[in-house]
Each structure stands twice: as structure tokens, then as C-alpha cells.
């Protein structure tokens, strides 16, 4: 009813931005990016973007799946296990002679089946999602260790081939030819994580598609409905169990996919639960500081993407500034709390704002 959208001045744009769920984290991310650009000579460079991206893209994909579970008012910790489990299954299937692409597809289907089990415990048996997914986390990380005997292996399809090519150089007017070594990775590896921008492209595509699913499809509508009023949604005829299980399947699938990407990018499958455990918590943190409520009923996939970007920029920027490695986790912790507090205040200001939805 208040018409304060008529002429978007600078202040109006800022107000509009703040009124978005993702608004506060966008502002915070820009501030942090500007700070590091001004204070380091290397932040705003192409080569840094190449080092920053591999860190944040997997978080963004993990976060996208997690958002669907968080909006339900549940949480899925088992994404860490799927991240670790999928590449090992992929390796086993490939070494059994299935071929690269069928192995990826089948390993993803297995992750989805595991997600369906987690979701069924929550939706049908009514076990708390925190406890169920924690059990699945330990269980499948354990199974990964058993299957892999705890030994790292080379990721199938990610081998680097080196070839020697003759390169012509012109030195002081003389043409000389020198042999140079060039590294290649296969097309398969380039697509599934090894290409510099491969994971970023996957992340952007997945985030955009899932944001559309969340905002413009019945699936998204029902997800929000269940998180906002589970009984009411059921009374209206929403199939609560089906949607819940489906969202856990989605989270497990994306976690498995990221696990395989990272294994191909790093060329090795490391059966070590400590990395996945940290990653899953950072992905959840990214989703939450991106504007998704832990209590459910509201959330955004794009927000989780920006939340992941924020955490990526923060880590990268601190490293570039030469911060002692021992301080990194400490600063990350503080940053999460500060970003979250900013969110709470902005959300409160937004609710106080009548009129603009």
C-alpha cells in the first residue's frame, strides 16, 4: 500500500536489497570482497579466481541440496558421508569394468537410494533428522573406510597424460625449436570436475535450476509448506512423506556428485572422514548465513550459493593477507557468527517494514 518503489534512488535500491532474503549476505560478501581487493594486490586477479573457485563451488552445490532439507525444518548431516562414499563406489564400479560414465551414473543412483533411506527414517518412522543423518554420516563414512581399506587410490578417468610438443620460439631473430611438456586431462575429467571452471559451471547450473524448482514448481511450494506448517500441509493434501524423502534424495545426490567432482579434480580418492566432516558443516553454515532458516519454512538456493562464496572469499582473502594458518578456523568461526547476527537484525528490520514483501 505504501508506494515506495516508484523511483529507485540509491537508498531505495539498498532498501530493496535488504528486503531480499539474500540481501544481507550479498552486502556482507561485497564488503569483504572490496576489503580484500583493497588490502591485497593479488585478490582481484584471474589466477586467484582460479584458486578461489575450487574451494567455494563444491560448498555451493552441497548447500543447494541442503537448503531443500533445511526448509523442511530438518537437517541432513549425511551429505558428508555421501561426499566420501560416492567416489569410492565410482572407483569400485569402474575397476569392475563398468566404464566411467555408467559408473558415475550408478554411483549417483546408489547415493540417491541412501538418501531415500535417510529420508524414510525421518518421514515414515519419525526419527529426528539430526540423529538419523548423524548415524548415516558415521555409518557410511565407516563403510567407505571398510570398502577402501583406508587406502587412497588414483581416481579413474582423471589421469594426466603428458605429451612432448615441439614449440617454435623466435629469439634474437633466430628461430629455434624446443621440446615442451604439455599436460592433458581427458574430456570426461574436464567435464566432471577437473576443468578449471567445471565445478563452477555445475554449481551455477544446479543453483539456478534448483532456485527455479524452489520458487516456481509445486515441489518447491510443498517444501516451503511442510516447513512452515507440517500438519496444515498434510491436511491440505500435500504428500509430506513423499516430499520429505525426495528432498533427502536430492541432498544425497548432490553430495555424491560433489564427492566425485572433487576426487576427479584432485586425481585421488582419499578415504579420510575429516575433510567431508568439515565440508558438510561449512556447507550448512553457508546455507544458513545465505538466509535459509534452520527452523524451516523459508530459504533460498541462491542465498546458499552466496553464503558459500562469502566463506570462500573469506578463507582465500585471509590466506592472501598472510594470516597464520592456525588462525584461519578461528576467523571463520567469528565471521559466521557476525554474518549470522547481521542476518538476524536485517530480518527483524525487514519484518518491521510493512508493505514491501
Amino acid at each position: 500500500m505504501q508506494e515506495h518503489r516508484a523511483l529507485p534512488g540509491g537508498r531505495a535500491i539498498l532498501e530493496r536489497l535488504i528486503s531480499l532474503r539474500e540481501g544481507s549476505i550479498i552486502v556482507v560478501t561485497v564488503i569483504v570482497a572490496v576489503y580484500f581487493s583493497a588490502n591485497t594486490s593479488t585478490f582481484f586477479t584471474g589466477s586467484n579466481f582460479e584458486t578461489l573457485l575450487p574451494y567455494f563451488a563444491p560448498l555451493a552445490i552441497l548447500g543447494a541440496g541442503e537448503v531443500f532439507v533445511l526448509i523442511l525444518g530438518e537437517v541432513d548431516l549425511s551429505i558428508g558421508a555421501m561426499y566420501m562414499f560416492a567416489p569410492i563406489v565410482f572407483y569400485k564400479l569402474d575397476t569392475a569394468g563398468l566404464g566411467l560414465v555408467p559408473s558415475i551414473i550408478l554411483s549417483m543412483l546408489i547415493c540417491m537410494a541412501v538418501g531415500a533411506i535417510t529420508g524414510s527414517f525421518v518421514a515414515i518412522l519419525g526419527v529426528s533428522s539430526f540423529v538419523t543423518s548423524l548415524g548415516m554420516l558415521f555409518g557410511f563414512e565407516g563403510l567407505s573406510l571398510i570398502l577402501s581399506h583406508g587406502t587412497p587410490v588414483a581416481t579413474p578417468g582423471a589421469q594426466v597424460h603428458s605429451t612432448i610438443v615441439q614449440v617454435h620460439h623466435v629469439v634474437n631473430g633466430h628461430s629455434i625449436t624446443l621440446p615442451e611438456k604439455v599436460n592433458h586431462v581427458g574430456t570426461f575429467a574436464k567435464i566432471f570436475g577437473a576443468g578449471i571452471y567445471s565445478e563452477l559451471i555445475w554449481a551455477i547450473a544446479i543453483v539456478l535450476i534448483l532456485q527455479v524448482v524452489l520458487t516456481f514448481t509445486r515441489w518447491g511450494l510443498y517444501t516451503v509448506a511442510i516447513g512452515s506448517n507440517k500438519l496444515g500441509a498434510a491436511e491440505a493434501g500435500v504428500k509430506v512423506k513423499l516430499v520429505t524423502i525426495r528432498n533427502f534424495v536430492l541432498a544425497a545426490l548432490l553430495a555424491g556428485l560433489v564427492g566425485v567432482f572433487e576426487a576427479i579434480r584432485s586425481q585421488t580418492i582419499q578415504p579420510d572422514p575429516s575433510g567431508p566432516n568439515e565440508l558438510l558443516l561449512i556447507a550448512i553454515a553457508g546455507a544458513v548465513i545465505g538466509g535459509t532458516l534452520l527452523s524451516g519454512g523459508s530459504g533460498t538456493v541462491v542465498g546458499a550459493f552466496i553464503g558459500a562464496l562469502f566463506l570462500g572469499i573469506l578463507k582465500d582473502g585471509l590466506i592472501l593477507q598472510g594470516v597464520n594458518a592456525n588462525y584461519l578456523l578461528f576467523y571463520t568461526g567469528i565471521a559466521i557468527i557476525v554474518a549470522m547476527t547481521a542476518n538476524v537484525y536485517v530480518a527483524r528490520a525487514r519484518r518491521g517494514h510493512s508493505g514491501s514483501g
Partner: protein
Amino acid sequence: MADAAAPQTGVVGPTSAPDDVLRVEHIAKRFGPVTALKDVNLHLKQGEVLGLLGDNGAGKSTLIKIICGFQKADAGKMWLRGEPYEPKSVDDARAHGIETVYQDLALIDELSVYHNLFLRKERVHRPVPLLSNRQMKREARAALDDIGINIPRIDVAVARLSGGQRQAIAVARTVNSDADILLLDEPLAAMGAKEGAQILDLVARLKDEGRVSIIMILHNYVHVLQACDRVSMIQDGAIALDKPTAETSVEELTDIVVNEYRRAREEAHRAEAEAASGGAAASGGAAASEGASGA
């Protein structure tokens, strides 16, 4: 033993009329140790508005939830337009033309007014099934105008509406459908006099159109006599009265409730007395309390 002057508060057996759209016979439902419905018999005629009365906990809402497919009865049978009717889900009941306004409204606070109106009946594009928000907004606006409910903005979250507006949205959701049987569980609960009158007007208009048949849970006897053709009263998990509203009065309805209260109080007294006098003197205690009630 019962006072001759008091109205009979027996249990109404199965009754039916030739133009019944819905018949419910011998429905029973337990929740663990609690018996919500013992033996409920009910029928709803084409185009009729049936008022359902009863105390809190008498089982009204449970009955509604069984008819609309949200819960399953432990025993009993239902017929819809002469066919056996056993709803497997809310969607199934909806497919049979039954829409419900729940006591808790089943509104989704985080969703907009129009998304709430179309929940489970979303309009989507073809062939890619994306939500057609524009179409839903347009239809929602038209439906609300048609019903005569004034909601200034339909793209805001339902959480921002007043209690009465929320109630109106919940009612509008059922009216804005192809359903020919509406179940309204306390549609006036959160409403002021003016908003309540609007809903009753709407019910009267639907009745005049004659397309839908309505079961409506109400608390206010005046509303029942004003808006309903017939009234059924649930007491203690069974139907204690089933009469056309023209043949009953606020006094009769009140008497039934007062008698039920007296009966329940005497029962409680008797149980207390029995417990106090112990097993050996049980029959003596019961006799004493009977004597007291006769005096």
C-alpha cells in the same frame, strides 16, 4: 430414572433420506486409550446445510477428519451418492468432491494468499509444469471478489493477515473449487460479528444456489438455527439428536447439553463414591448416590 420432563437424549441410529449425498453409519474411532467416536450415524441431503453441535472433545472434528480422508475410521461404513465411500487420502476425498476447512485452518503462513488458495490445486503451465502465478493471482482475486471477502493484497504472506481474514481465506479455499460437499469445522471461530456474518451470508448464498451440501460445526445455537436446515448433536462419541432446525429451539438444544452435564456429573460422583467406599460397600454407595439424585 431420567426426568420425564427432560428431552430424550438417546443415541440416534442410522437414518437416511432418498436424496442423501453422504451417509455415515456406525463410525467408531479410538486414539490409544481415548474413544473419540463410539457409534456415529449421520446423513446429509442434497443441497442441505447440516449443523454439527457438541462439546469440546465430543468428536466433531474427528468425524470431519474421517469424512475428508485425513484419518481412517476403526469401524463403520460411509456412502457417497449411494456408492460405498472409503477415502484413502485427502486428495482422494477431494477427487470425490469433498473439501474441508479445518479447525486449525491448515494455512501456510510463509506462503502468499493466492498460493494458499490454490494449495494442491495449483495452476501450472504446459508442457513445463512451472507454477502459473499470474493465473492463480487473477483467479484468486476473482474468487475472493465473488465470495465477497475483502483482502487488500493477495501476494502477501498469510502470516500478515488478521485472524478473521485467515479464516475467510480458509473458507474461500473450499468454496473456490469444484467440490459439492463442504465440511466446515468452526468456520466462525476467529471472526468478529461482521466477518462472521459475511461467512454465514456466503453459506446462505451457496445454499440458495443448491449446488453444494454442507456440514458445518458451530458453537453458537443462534447461528445453527439461522444458517442450518438440520442439526445433529454429538455427545460422548454418538449422535444424541438429529432434527430439522425448524422443529427445535435454543431451549431444547440447551436442555440436552444441561442434561448431559448433569448425567456426566452424577457419573463422576458415583465413581468417586464407589472409589471412596471401597469394593465391599460398593453397592451401598451406589444406592446412596442414586437416592441423592432422586431427591
